[in-house]
C-alpha cells in the first residue's frame, strides 16, 4: 500500500537534491512573472479533492473571467514549495494548512493581508482570522476551512463484542484491547489492531496525532505565558504522564497497528478501510471516502473520550496564501475573496467524496443545512468547544518535528525513561524557542 505515495516522495526527494545544488538567487534570478499568464494556484490535494477544487475554480473563472492554472500536489507539497521558493518562482496562490503560516511568514514567502480590506472579510469568524495571524500580530493568509480531529470507531466490531461507546481514556484502551485480542472481524485470526496511528516523523506527523492526547492529559508542547510569550511544557508532570499513557498503548497493551512508527497519514487510511484497525483519531475529511470503501453503517464518529484533563482535540484548518513575487496581486485577492464567499464555501463542503471546505469559515454558511449529516454537527460542536490549534510561534515546524522524533523514539524503544527523553526534548525546544525570540526571559 502507498506505493505511489512513496515513489512520488522519492521522485521529489531526488529532484529536491538536484534543486538543492541547482537553485538559488545568484544562479537563477527570479524570472519576471508574466502578468498575462493564468493565476497559478496550488493545493495539497489528492485526485478526489482536486475535482472539488476544479469545480470551485471553474465557478471563479465564470464569475470573474480570471483564468486559473490549477495544480493539485498530493505528496510532499511542502518540499515542492521549498524548491519553488529556492528558485524564487512561487505559485501565485496556495491553499494549505494554517500551521504553515509561521514558516511561510518567517521565510518571507507570503504577503500581508488587511482583514478589513478583503471583501466579505467581516463575515469570517474571528477564530478563523486568528488562525491566519502570525506571531507579530499581522495577518498573512485568508482563512478557507476549519476542522477538528475526530475519533472514528468501527461500530460493527464494537457492537459484535458488546462494548459501549468509550467516554474515557480507560474505556478507550479497553475497547482497543478488545479489538486487538477478541477477533472482532471473526476470521479466527489475530490480525486486527485496536488503534491506528500515522506515526512517522516525516513532516512531524506523529505530533499531529499525539497532540490531542497530550492536551487531554493536561500536558502541552508549548504553554502560553499570558504575555504573548511561551514556555516549554513538554517535560511537565502532566506531559510525562500523558506520554507514559501513549507509550503504554505501543509497549504494554500493544493495541497499535504494526509498522505505525513509519506510517504516514496517506498510508494509514487503508488500515482502517480494510479492517486492520478499529479506532482512528483523524481529520473529518475522510467520511466520504470511508462511507464508500468501508460503508457508512460500519463505523461511527464518537465524541472525544475524555482524558484526565478533558476532551481537547487539535483544531486547525486551511488558509489561502497570497504568495510573494506574484505579478497579479489583484487577481490573487479576487480569488481569496471568492473562496470565502458562501457559494464557494458550499461547493467546497459538498465535494464528494471529500469536502475541501470542512467547516466553513464564513459565519453565514450553515453547517447543519449544508451537510445534513449529524456527524458534521458533532465536528462543528467539537471545533467550537474543544478544539485548539498549535501555538502561534514564528515557526512551529521545528517544534513539531523534534517532538515527533522524540515521541517516535520513546514508542519505538519502549524506554522506561520517559522523563529523561522528554527532558532532553525540552532542552532542545527551549533553545529553539529562544532562537525564535519567543521565550520568556
Amino acid at each position, binding site marked *: 500500500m502507498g506505493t505511489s505515495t512513496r515513489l512520488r516522495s522519492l521522485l521529489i526527494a531526488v529532484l529536491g537534491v538536484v534543486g538543492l545544488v*541547482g537553485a538559488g538567487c545568484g544562479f537563477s534570478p527570479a524570472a519576471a512573472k508574466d502578468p498575462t499568464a493564468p493565476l497559478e494556484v496550488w493545493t495539497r490535494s489528492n485526485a478526489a479533492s482536486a475535482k472539488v477544487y476544479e469545480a470551485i475554480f471553474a465557478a471563479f473563472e465564470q464569475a470573474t473571467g480570471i483564468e486559473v492554472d490549477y495544480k493539485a500536489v498530493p505528496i510532499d507539497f511542502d518540499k515542492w514549495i521549498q524548491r519553488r521558493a529556492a528558485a*524564487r518562482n512561487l505559485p501565485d496562490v496556495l491553499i494549505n494548512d494554517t500551521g504553515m503560516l509561521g*514558516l511561510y511568514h518567517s521565510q*518571507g514567502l507570503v504577503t500581508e493581508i488587511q482583514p478589513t480590506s478583503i471583501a466579505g472579510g467581516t463575515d469570517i469568524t474571528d477564530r478563523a482570522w486568528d488562525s491566519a495571524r502570525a506571531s507579530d500580530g499581522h495577518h498573512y493568509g485568508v482563512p478557507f476551512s476549519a476542522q477538528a480531529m475526530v475519533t472514528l470507531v468501527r461500530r460493527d466490531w464494537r457492537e459484535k463484542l458488546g462494548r459501549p461507546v468509550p467516554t474515557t481514556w480507560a474505556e478507550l484502551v479497553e475497547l482497543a484491547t478488545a479489538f486487538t485480542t477478541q477477533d472482532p472481524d471473526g476470521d479466527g485470526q489475530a490480525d486486527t489492531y485496536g488503534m491506528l496511528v500515522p506515526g*512517522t516523523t516525516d513532516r512531524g506527523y506523529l505530533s499531529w496525532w499525539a497532540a490531542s492526547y497530550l492536551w487531554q492529559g493536561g500536558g502541552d508542547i508549548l504553554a502560553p505565558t499570558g504575555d504573548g510569550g511561551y514556555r516549554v511544557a513538554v517535560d511537565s508532570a502532566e506531559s510525562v504522564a500523558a506520554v507514559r499513557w501513549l507509550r503504554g498503548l505501543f509497549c504494554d497493551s500493544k493495541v497499535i497497528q504494526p509498522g505505525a512508527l513509519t506510517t504516514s497519514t496517506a498510508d494509514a487510511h487503508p488500515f482502517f478501510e480494510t479492517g486492520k484497525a478499529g479506532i482512528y483519531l483523524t481529520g473529518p475529511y475522510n467520511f466520504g471516502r470511508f462511507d464508500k470503501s468501508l460503508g457508512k453503517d460500519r463505523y461511527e464518529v464518537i465524541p472525544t473520550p475524555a482524558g484526565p484533563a478533558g476532551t481537547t482535540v487539535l483544531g486547525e484548518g486551511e488558509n489561502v496564501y497570497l504568495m510573494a513575487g506574484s505579478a497579479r496581486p489583484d487577481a490573487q485577492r479576487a480569488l481569496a475573496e471568492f473562496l470565502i464567499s458562501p457559494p464557494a464555501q458550499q461547493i467546497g463542503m459538498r465535494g464528494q467524496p471529500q469536502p475541501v471546505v470542512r467547516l466553513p469559515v464564513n459565519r453565514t454558511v450553515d453547517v447543519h443545512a449544508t451537510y445534513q449529516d449529524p456527524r458534521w454537527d458533532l465536528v462543528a460542536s467539537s471545533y467550537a468547544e474543544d478544539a485548539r490549534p498549535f501555538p502561534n510561534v514564528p515557526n512551529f515546524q521545528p517544534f513539531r*518535528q523534534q517532538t515527533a522524533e522524540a515521541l517516535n523514539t520513546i514508542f519505538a524503544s519502549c524506554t522506561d525513561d520517559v522523563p529523561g527523553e522528554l527532558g532532553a526534548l525540552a532542552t532542545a525546544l527551549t533553545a529553539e524557542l529562544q532562537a525564535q525570540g519567543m521565550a520568556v526571559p
Partner: protein
Amino acid sequence: MPWLFLAPALVLFALFKYVPMVEGVRLSLYEVRPFLGDVWVGLDNYASVLTDPLFRTAAGHTLLLALGTTFGSMLVGFGLALLLEGQARTLWFVRSAVFLPVVTAAAVVGEIWRMLYYPAPDGFVNTLLSWVGLGPWPFLDSPDTSLWSVMAVGVWKGAPYDMVIILAGLAGIDRQQYEAAAIDGASVWQRLRHVTVPALRPVASILLTLAAIRGLRVFTEVYVLTGGGPANSTTVWMTTLISRGFEKQDIGVASAAAVLLFLVTLALTVAVRVYRARKEIG
C-alpha cells in the same frame, strides 16, 4: 572538431551537473533565505553539520550500512557465482533470473520489501519464518532490527551484480591450476581457499572499492523502506540531509552536508586511483 562533438554532452553536464555543484558550494556558505536575502555565514554551516548529533548518528549508520552491504554482497555473490558457474542453458536462465534485482529500480525494490517485511505474524517473511518455527520478527518496525533489515535488502539487491563480476573472474582462472591441485590431493575446500580466492583478488579489490564508495551515498532503499525511522535508527547521511533541507528548511546546512559527502567520496576515489596506479606500475 572533437570539442564540437562533445559539445552537447558538455552543455548538458555543465547545466545539470557543474553549475549546480558550484551553486551548492556557494549555498553551503550562506543562511539561505530566497525571499529575504541570503546571509553570509562562512563555515558555520559546516560546523553545525559536524557537531550535529543527528548527522553523527547518520554517519555511523552510513558506514555500518556501507560495510555490511559491501561484504554481505561479496559473500553472497561469491556463493552464487560458485553455484551458477558453467555453460549449461539452464544455468544461463537461472543467472538471468538471479540478476533481476540489480536492474529493478531501487524504489520498487524498497516498496516490495516493505510489504514483504510487514511486521505482523501474517506478513510474508514472517509467514515463511513461522514454517521453521521462528518469528514473528519486527524487521523495520523496531530500532533494534531495522538497520539490519535495510542491510539485508541492500545485500539482496547488490549480490547478483557482484556475482556477475566474480563469474567473469572465475572464468579467467586457469583450469590447469585446479587440476594440478587436485592431483596433489587438495580437497574441494583447499582448492577454493588456495586457488580460487587468491585468483579473485583483483576482482575483489575493484568490487570492494566501488561498493564502498557507492555505499556512502545510499539513499533510495532507506528512504523508501523506513524514511530513516523508527526512532532515527536507520538515518543515513542522505536522508538526514534531505530532512534538514526540506523539512527543517535549512538549505544552507543541507548544502554543506552535501559538499562534505562529495569531498569524502572524492578523496576515497582519488585514493583508490592512486593506489591502483601504483600497483600497476609496481
